[in-house]
């Protein structure tokens, strides 16, 4: 696709010049807005979640700027509460949860399975529009006066505050169903649309990860749905379930909420694990170390994560025995998680490592996730958490996993599949620089938060005592650097679409089916339905010519 391609063409275009692909096979607004093609839906998700990420990032920068001085710089208390709630809610519900499954999952999963589409294309489009509806409702909630409950909507405050909680609750409910339908679709696709010869243990690990994620999405999200609905009802007609004035129990809300939201942290992180599994293998040109271990550890995580929600409630007054059990079980989650980390490192070890930009993002992930996961274990220890709960230490912990690991894995995957999706390659030098800036900026933002958190700085406060000022200022500077790095990344990625520097058929030398389809893929993904005859990640099958053939 170096030049403009004639679009109006009769059937099956010649495979050489002007080959038809999913991007140029039809044009016009409705050919996108009404598309049933998983790749186009994936691109629409990509645009949507990227806007959510940038909006959420903007709110984050406002929070950090406000905290430059102990007495606060920009906002009053109520506005501050609204801004950090907006940041959290946008990031969690509109970006981190849908980002990888919705965009890369949608585009890559059917390709990897050798399918023509997801099993239920209409439902897929519905998922996307539910996401859009949720985004519109969330924005509406801002217009209607905002919301200041934090992304966790804890009762009883969420029942008493005079803000637009019902609207944002509705948004979360709708987004929940968007997520459920995506998960449901991927489960069915994985079961029913695998190409001939694609056995379960020949599936790439990205597919395994998305599959495990989908199970969590289907089993956990309905509980969140009913919980936010009950909060809305509670506000509308005072059921009394969560309201202590009416005989209700606010801790019941916390149980309901974390029964979803702890599994949800793995809904967020498992797809990221999947991306990293693919990338360490391709860019080290080595089969994955412990393929089955990684596959099963995803399932183990999916199961164990339903049993640990109480570690978010160590100070809520739940029974002491429950706390012991939850603390103990939390340590168990760390085992399958560590298995993955070790397997990735062992994959890179003695590999033929190519330090392409996707690999750089991957290596950054490996470092950051080790810290994020280990600090989780620290928090899982009951006696330690009593002190660290609701401090910046927790904030830093989950940003190491949610921003530093998940967002970075998303960036890594984006860089990896960008040439596949669009047939163009971005500026590698800028990409490497941006990755460096993001890595430095990220750590500069959150290391100070670990320190001040361990010294007692509570989270979600608009003002603070002066002794924390140096940490807050360091963190704010770091956030600016991080923001600059992300802006640079957005710039060169978007620019690459206009510069149209042609990518190779198989840019990095992958051997999974996604790299064996033409680049960019045709509407139905493969010219001939593929049959799988080799084991997964078998690099002896790599056809080096495809790495030097520019896309037609």
């Amino acid at each position, binding site marked *: 696709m170096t030049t403009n391609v004639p679009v109006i063409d009769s*059937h099956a275009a010649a495979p050489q010049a002007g080959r038809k692909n999913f991007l140029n096979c039809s044009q016009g607004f409705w050919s996108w807005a009404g598309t049933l093609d998983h790749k186009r839906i994936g691109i629409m998700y990509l645009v949507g979640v990227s806007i959510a990420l940038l909006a959420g990032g903007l709110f984050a920068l406002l929070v950090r700027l406000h905290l430059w001085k102990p007495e606060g710089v920009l906002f009053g208390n109520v506005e501050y509460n609204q801004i950090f709630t907006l940041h959290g809610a946008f990031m969690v519900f509109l970006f981190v949860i849908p980002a990888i499954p919705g965009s890369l999952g949608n585009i890559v999963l059917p390709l990897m399975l050798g399918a023509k589409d997801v099993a239920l294309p209409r439902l897929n489009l519905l998922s996307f529009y539910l996401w859009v509806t949720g985004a519109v409702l969330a924005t509406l909630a801002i217009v209607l006066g905002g919301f200041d409950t934090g992304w966790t909507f804890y009762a009883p405050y969420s029942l008493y505050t005079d803000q637009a909680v019902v609207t944002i609750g509705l948004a979360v409910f709708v987004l929940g169903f968007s997520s459920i339908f995506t998960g449901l679709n991927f489960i069915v696709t994985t079961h029913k649309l695998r190409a001939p010869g694609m056995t379960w243990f020949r599936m790439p690990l990205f597919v395994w990860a998305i599959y495990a994620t989908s199970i969590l999405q289907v089993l956990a999200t309905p509980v969140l749905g009913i919980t936010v609905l009950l909060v809305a009802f509670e506000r509308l007609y*005072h059921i009394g379930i969560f309201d202590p004035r009416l005989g209700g129990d606010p801790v019941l809300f916390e149980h309901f909420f974390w029964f979803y939201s702890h599994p949800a942290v793995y809904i967020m992180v498992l797809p990221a694990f999947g991306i990293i599994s693919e990338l360490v293998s391709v860019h080290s040109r080595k089969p994955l170390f412990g393929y089955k271990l990684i596959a099963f550890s995803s399932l183990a995580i999916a199961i164990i994560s339903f049993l640990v929600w109480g570690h978010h409630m160590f100070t809520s007054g739940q029974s002491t025995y429950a706390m012991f059990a939850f603390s103990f079980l939390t340590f168990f989650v760390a085992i399958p998680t560590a298995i993955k980390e070790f397997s990735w490192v062992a994959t890179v070890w003695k590999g033929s490592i190519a330090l392409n930009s996707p690999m750089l993002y991957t290596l950054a992930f490996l470092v950051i996730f080790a810290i994020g996961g280990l600090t989780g274990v620290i928090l899982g220890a009951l006696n330690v958490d009593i002190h660290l709960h609701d401090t910046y230490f927790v904030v830093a912990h989950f940003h190491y996993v949610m921003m530093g690991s998940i967002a970075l894995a998303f960036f890594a995957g984006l860089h990896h599949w960008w040439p596949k999706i669009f047939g163009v390659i971005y500026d590698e030098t800028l990409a490497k620089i941006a990755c460096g800036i993001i890595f430095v900026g990220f750590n500069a933002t959150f290391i100070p938060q670990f320190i001040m958190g361990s010294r007692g700085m509570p989270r979600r406060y608009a003002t603070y005592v002066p002794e924390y000022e140096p940490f807050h200022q360091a963190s704010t500077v770091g956030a600016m650097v991080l923001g600059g790095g992300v802006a640079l990344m957005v710039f060169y990625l978007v620019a690459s679409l206009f510069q149209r520097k042609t990518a190779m058929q198989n840019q990095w030398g992958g051997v999974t089916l996604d790299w064996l389809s033409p680049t960019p893929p045709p509407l139905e993904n493969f010219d001939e339905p593929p049959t799988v005859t080799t084991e997964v990640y078998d690099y002896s099958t790599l056809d080096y010519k495809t790495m030097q053939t520019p896309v037609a």
Partner: protein
Amino acid sequence: MSHDGHHSVVIPAPGPEFVPHTVAHHFDTPVQEFQAAKLGFWLFLATEILLFGGLFAAYFYFHEAYPETFRVGGHQLDWRLGALNTSVLLLSSWTMAMGVRSAQTSQKQKTLLFCGLTVLGAVIFMVIKFFEYQAKNEHGLVVFSELFAPYDAATGSIPWFKDYHGVMAGLPHGHLFFAIYLTMTAIHGLHVVIGAGLILWIMKGAAKGRFHAGYFLPVDLVGLYWHLVDLIWIFLFPLLYLVP
């Protein structure tokens, strides 16, 4: 949907009053299409059960916390109307099953008849429900006109809970039973209405001859949905009307 250069699988119609079914382009066989949709729908039903699961959890929690409130509250419900509604739904599950069977055996008129009877069952259920709600309204246990009125923290009284006859007097948080009763039955009622709408949609397709021995997937799925709606009521009825 036109997809260049690829041939779709078509299931022929068994007779002139039916229309053929074209298998969606991304499936290789009708069986694959059928199984995919079926698996997806079962997963969806699981999410519905989990959604109600949250409500059931709340029910048990508060039943445990305020047993006396739930005992007396339960006695305010008319178990005869509840039992009548249970029979109506059970019967409608049978007519739905017969509707699916008729579609599978290409009996168009029977499909329409049984689906129509099922919708009738849904209507009867909702009418009876209406009278139940009306009784609660009259006794001030759920005053619908006041349902969304603001709560007055100063007096601590809930505007929609007036309890004219003082049946819940002296019990802790008497409104709680009725709030849970209302929430659970209203969400269930919404499912009944949605189910009836889906069955009407099936009847429209059946009238056009879309469903026959070669293709009856949507009838099958809507049938499953209707059985789930029924099943949830089977749990609601004893919990709300009998257990207390």
